[in-house]
């Protein structure tokens, strides 16, 4: 904690960044924005930090204040790499204060982040419990699966907390906000809720780092990570996709290989 605070303070003191985005040392570990060196004493990090702070990097208010530094556990580091690969971060304008558990790993630029991830976190895997939940659901009949989601999606209020939480959701005009044509119903009713969550998950294919921020943010507790996990697993198994390691990566949806599977094609 001390090392993190010192590193953040140094960045601000040396004016290498105008803002350090971190977690605050209070209950719930909410986002905290240190703009002055003396603010850095309020920074903290531990496993209860659920927000993916990379989500702020897409906000115009934050982009207006670049360069910034972000306190970043591994999943957030990966998000930074994804955003770099998708040309969302101007080069050299975002630094990561890498943290993991209790340790502060240092200050890294985008290239350094990728290097750190490859060196130290190349084997990050989804939580086994999450995969078990997916597996459990897949073992049910299609009708049971439909009923499961019917019950879940009926709770959705369309507050879009999932979208706000996600660093991958940086579109200035979300597809659900496009009204000509309005593909996804904005009413918080069955089919619109279903299409919304399914498409939002699909739009993260090959980009989601399974940080869990969407599910954590959902006020209704929808099991959104099931959708992300099934896509993550499929993308890994079929295409070897591991989002968030290669800042030069081509988008998974938007590239192809002649060897891609099509055994399901008739």
């Amino acid at each position, binding site marked *: 904690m001390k090392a993190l605070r010192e590193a953040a303070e140094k960045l601000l003191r040396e004016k290498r960044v105008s803002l350090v985005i971190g977690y605050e040392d209070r209950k719930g570990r909410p986002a905290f924005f240190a703009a002055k060196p003396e603010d850095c004493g309020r920074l903290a990090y531990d496993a209860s930090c659920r927000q993916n702070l990379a989500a702020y990097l897409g906000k115009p208010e934050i982009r207006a204040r670049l360069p910034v530094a972000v306190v970043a556990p591994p999943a957030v580091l990966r998000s930074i790499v994804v955003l770099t690969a998708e040309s969302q971060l101007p080069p050299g304008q975002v630094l990561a204060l890498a943290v993991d558990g209790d340790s502060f790993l240092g200050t890294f630029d985008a290239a350094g982040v990728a290097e750190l991830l490859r060196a130290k976190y190349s084997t990050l895997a989804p939580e086994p419990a999450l995969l078990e939940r997916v597996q459990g659901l897949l073992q049910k009949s299609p009708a049971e699966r439909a009923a499961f989601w019917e019950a879940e999606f009926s709770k959705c209020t369309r507050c879009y907390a999932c979208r706000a939480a996600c660093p991958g959701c940086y579109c*200035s005009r979300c*597809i659900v906000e*496009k009204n000509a044509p309005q*593909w996804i119903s904005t009413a918080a009713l069955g089919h619109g809720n279903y299409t919304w969550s399914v498409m939002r998950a699909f739009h993260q294919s090959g980009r989601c780092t399974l940080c869990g921020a969407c599910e954590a943010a959902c006020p209704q507790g929808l099991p959104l990570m099931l959708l992300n996990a099934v896509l993550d697993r499929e993308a890994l198994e079929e295409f070897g996709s591991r989002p968030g390691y290669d800042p030069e990566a081509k988008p998974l949806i938007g590239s192809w290989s002649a060897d891609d599977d099509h055994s399901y094609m008739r």
Partner: protein
Amino acid sequence: MARIGVFICHCGENIGRTVDCAAVSAAAAKMPGVVVGMDYKYMCSDPGQQMIRKAIIEQKLTGVVVGACSPRMHERTFRAAAAEAGLNPYLLEMANLREHCSWVHSNQAEATQKAIDLVRVMVAKVRRNRPLRPIRVPVEPTALVVGGGIAGIQAALDIAAGGKKVVLVESGPSIGGHMARLSETFPTLDCSQCILTPRMVEAASHPNITLMTYSEVASVEGFVGNFTVTIRRKARYVDPAKCTGCGDCFNKCPIKKIPNEFDAGLGLRRAIYVPFPQAVPNKPVIDAAHCTMLQKGKCGLCAKVCPRGAIDYQDQDRLEKVKVGAVVLATGFQLWDHAAYGEYGGGRLRDVIDGFAFERLASASGPTAGLIKRPSDGKEPKTVVFLQCCGSRDDKVGKKYCSKICCMYTAKHAMLYRHKVHDGRAVVFYMDVRAAGKGYEEFVRRAIEADGAEYVRGRVSRITRRRDGKLVVLGADTLAGRPVTIDADLVVLADAVVPRPGSEKLAQLFGVGYDQDGFYSEAHPKLRPVETAAAGVFLAGACQAPKDIPETVSQASAAAAKVLGLFAKPELEREPVIARVNRTTCAHCRACISACPYGAAKDFDIVDRAGKVLRAVADVNEGLCQGCGTCASVCRSHSVDLDGFTDEQIHAELNAL
């Protein structure tokens, strides 16, 4: 307000027999936006088209749906009719009631219901159609031909003869390509250089052709009609404007022992050289890697002896931009390196040579002045084994495909050898003899019957060199069903034909596809064998697949005809089905840029009045876009749309189902 006309065709009995056309037109007349619903025996007939034209004018129609045959059959017909009546042709759509309905269903109620649905979908779509205008692209009537072999020369000459300018780019110091290296050509045994060199000279002197030898394509921008190609003019160190080709320099050059590539390494050249005496242009270049002046700053002899002061050791690569409207790729081939075959000596046996080496041995202008001498000791070989399909038709070590020309040139080699060494033995190992060409089979028969070439059906399993210098060829005669061992003096391998190195990179520059072996992909294997997926880029010769000379020349002329066709009008007209980006909502994730098969989706900077970049977005180049719509479907915010198949149209179609 939408005023849609629906016209249902009976197609004689073809549709009417199964679909109740009157019921369909009556149902259509009640669909939202429809003001006219009619049916008629033959819509595509003159009276049928007249019905449509009349309704467009009288009813002030804003859209038309024709329920008839497949749009693949008559969409052009009906769109032309609509245009004649003053309606933008892209406001007409067809519902396929014949191929997709009446011909495949027999139950009248079901077929009629389906027909109504299909019409409803198209009515819903056409209400969202917008008038489109064919895209017009001005054409720069200059062609770029890449590759100065016979394919490139032929294409360039044909285009030039058609009155259009050509830039002919060749990476080597001279044009001529492989054909210049051949001794005689099958099946007529014409002297290759005798028939080629006049063309080379013509190409160099033609007022419409700009020759750029010792040059390569460095980068490509633009699209059909409007390419800007940057050519790297490699440093020659000899100013061609001053050089008279007198030869004093290369006669005096002290660096003498460089294997000459043109002679397949059998002859030698200097560090300053022309590759062969009939080279065009006949101006030397300095091989910087071997020149001691350029490497160590010592020597300078050529500069001293040059009477015109043409030698320039400071010369550097230059980049030159050319604007062209079309491109012919004619980069040719090379022979596969048989070093991969360890059992044939792995490339280490000097008397195991490839076909080009044999051509040079047989050539009157070659290193042996046309005498057959084996490389190791210069002796005349008395037994020569020719081995076909070396690396071809072998998907383990070599290539899966047949290289097509080897059967013929091997027959030619055997024949030439027998003409020159009357007491020599020519043994040919073959898998099959593929001699499907005019006079080809006869030619092979002649080699066997008149010239006594011994053809053995079978493979060679091993070639080893005995201490006495003989090559022991272990093979099998599969017809006789016995092993064969031959003590040979020379072995000639008919190596597989493969694309030139760097051809893949070149393909990427032009957006041309290539297959797993690196041969360029034609747009359609049957019907568009000269075009590529990149509009305005055509293929000629062996860069597309192994070919012999007549085939290569045919394709080159075909490519030239395509180019001249393209240049026949000052503007190109293209179907306006292209993608567009909504710059306000584009988040610049670059997925479309990655996905576009044509490189049409590109980065674009939005700038303010002072030129300051405000933000970057994606943009679509109208000239390059072919309208597949892949960009639109990878766009998460649906900021990319495809004219003709817009989100609005598809959404409306789905809502009508």
